[in-house]
């Protein structure tokens, strides 16, 4: 199967990006500056990610609201047209089949953004048109993201946190949303493919450093955000992942509601927790977690925190393992001491 390409593929090659397969797409892993520099630039300055591999499913018309509201977990009445919302698509057993950002672009228009490989599944559940191939999506993130983005599009730079507004670039209709997945302020811009490279080049010319999937993963992990296939997926519910706020509990209907209510009544059997190591040694997905020498859980994502300069992880642990608790993580033969800490890890005090 050939890999899908972003409209920005040529721009990445010009910048010397290292490209990798991700969810059926060929996307930049890093640029010559490297993952660590890109990560730190996002925390201190501003970077731009090509996230065109996220799907865009456009659901329009008078039935669009009901299709989303009766299917996805979050409650759309908490927001209004012009708003954005993080939500889940569950299976009958309350497993998280995808985590999604919804941009409520117009009164009867929703741009629904699933993970790369889940677009077909989400369309099957809520309908709509797959318009992924028609646009590029660029995530401008970091404390200086808005200031630098203003040189390219003042309208896009002004969108508030978790708002989604239309704007134009070179006469082309675009959408800007105050969303992202790095733990920093920022704006995501969906831009038609024909003008995507011009928009990207303008961002880079404005002094926004390109960043790849390597930094995107360390940033989201440092922020404590789940990644589908790691912290979310078959057998994992929103309650286990600590995301009960993503659920509109008062709604009469959404997929997986019965099973999720039953789990809420009995209490989840495990909880996603953050772990911080005592050395630079990275932790890894699949590492076994021990409490008093007994295996009680497993790391779902782990790496090195460039801000804390410590190994960090997210792991499923029994519900009684509390904040501040000691957990041993088995890394290739040795057991590393870690402490349960609540993310975002980059906001914790550096030792």
């Amino acid at each position, binding site marked *: 199967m050939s890999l899908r390409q972003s409209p920005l593929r040529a721009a990445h090659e010009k910048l010397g990006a290292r490209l990798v397969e991700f969810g059926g797409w060929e996307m930049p892993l890093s640029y010559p500056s490297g*993952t660590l520099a890109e990560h730190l630039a996002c925390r201190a300055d501003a970077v731009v990610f090509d996230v065109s591999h996220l799907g865009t499913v456009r659901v329009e018309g008078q039935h669009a609201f009901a299709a989303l509201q009766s299917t996805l977990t979050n409650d759309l009445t908490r927001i209004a047209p012009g708003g954005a919302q993080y939500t889940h698509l569950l299976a009958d057993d309350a497993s998280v089949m995808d985590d999604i950002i919804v941009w409520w672009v117009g009164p009867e228009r929703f741009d629904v953004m699933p993970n790369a490989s889940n677009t077909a599944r989400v369309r099957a559940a809520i309908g709509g048109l797959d318009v992924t191939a028609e646009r590029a999506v660029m995530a401008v993130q970091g404390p200086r993201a808005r200031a630098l983005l203003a040189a390219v599009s003042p309208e896009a730079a002004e969108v508030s946190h978790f708002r989604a507004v239309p704007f134009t670039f070179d006469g082309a209709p675009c959408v800007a949303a105050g969303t992202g997945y790095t733990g920093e302020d920022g704006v995501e811009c969906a831009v038609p493919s024909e003008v995507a490279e011009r928009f990207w080049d303008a961002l880079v010319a404005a002094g926004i450093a390109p960043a790849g999937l390597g930094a995107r993963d360390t940033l989201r992990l440092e922020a404590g955000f789940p990644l589908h296939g790691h912290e979310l997926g078959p057998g994992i519910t929103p309650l286990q992942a600590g995301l009960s706020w993503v659920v509109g509990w008062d709604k009469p209907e959404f997929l997986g509601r019965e099973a999720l209510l039953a789990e809420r009544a009995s209490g989840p059997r495990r909880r996603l927790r953050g772990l911080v190591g005592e050395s*630079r040694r*990275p932790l890894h997905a699949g590492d076994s977690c021990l409490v008093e020498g007994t295996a009680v859980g497993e790391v779902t994502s782990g790496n090195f925190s460039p801000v804390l300069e410590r190994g960090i992880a997210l792991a499923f642990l029994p519900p009684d393992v509390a904040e501040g608790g000691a957990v041993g993580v088995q890394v290739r033969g040795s057991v590393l001491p870690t402490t349960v800490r609540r993310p975002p890890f980059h906001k914790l005090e550096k030792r």
Partner: protein
Amino acid sequence: MDIPEDLSYTADHEWVRVEPGRATVGITDFAQSALGDVVFVQLPETGTRVERGSTLGEVESTKSVSEIYAPVAGVVAAVNSALVEAPERLNEDPYGGGWLCVIEGVDEVEIAELLPAEKYRQLTAS
């Protein structure tokens, strides 16, 4: 790709600086580039006796872990402990400040079996 002429190499992308009776070991420019940003290095303890091909330590980046193998047998006489807090030296200066360890009591026959720069260059080009 920088491949200094005065060093010897292994097919595992390590370099060896040979001096009488001792060998300084590191990873090549090719290896550091393939690994990406190194964030953690585990070094052997001095005094450890190693066989050719046995594990000397680990080098880990944000995307992968690589074992370091002893290019020749001998005793670990010194390690570059500065790498513990500054592993980025492996990326910045793989043939200088990024050296990993010194092995003493090395065998001349094993030294002679290491790859010369020209052979290693062919290996990385293929």
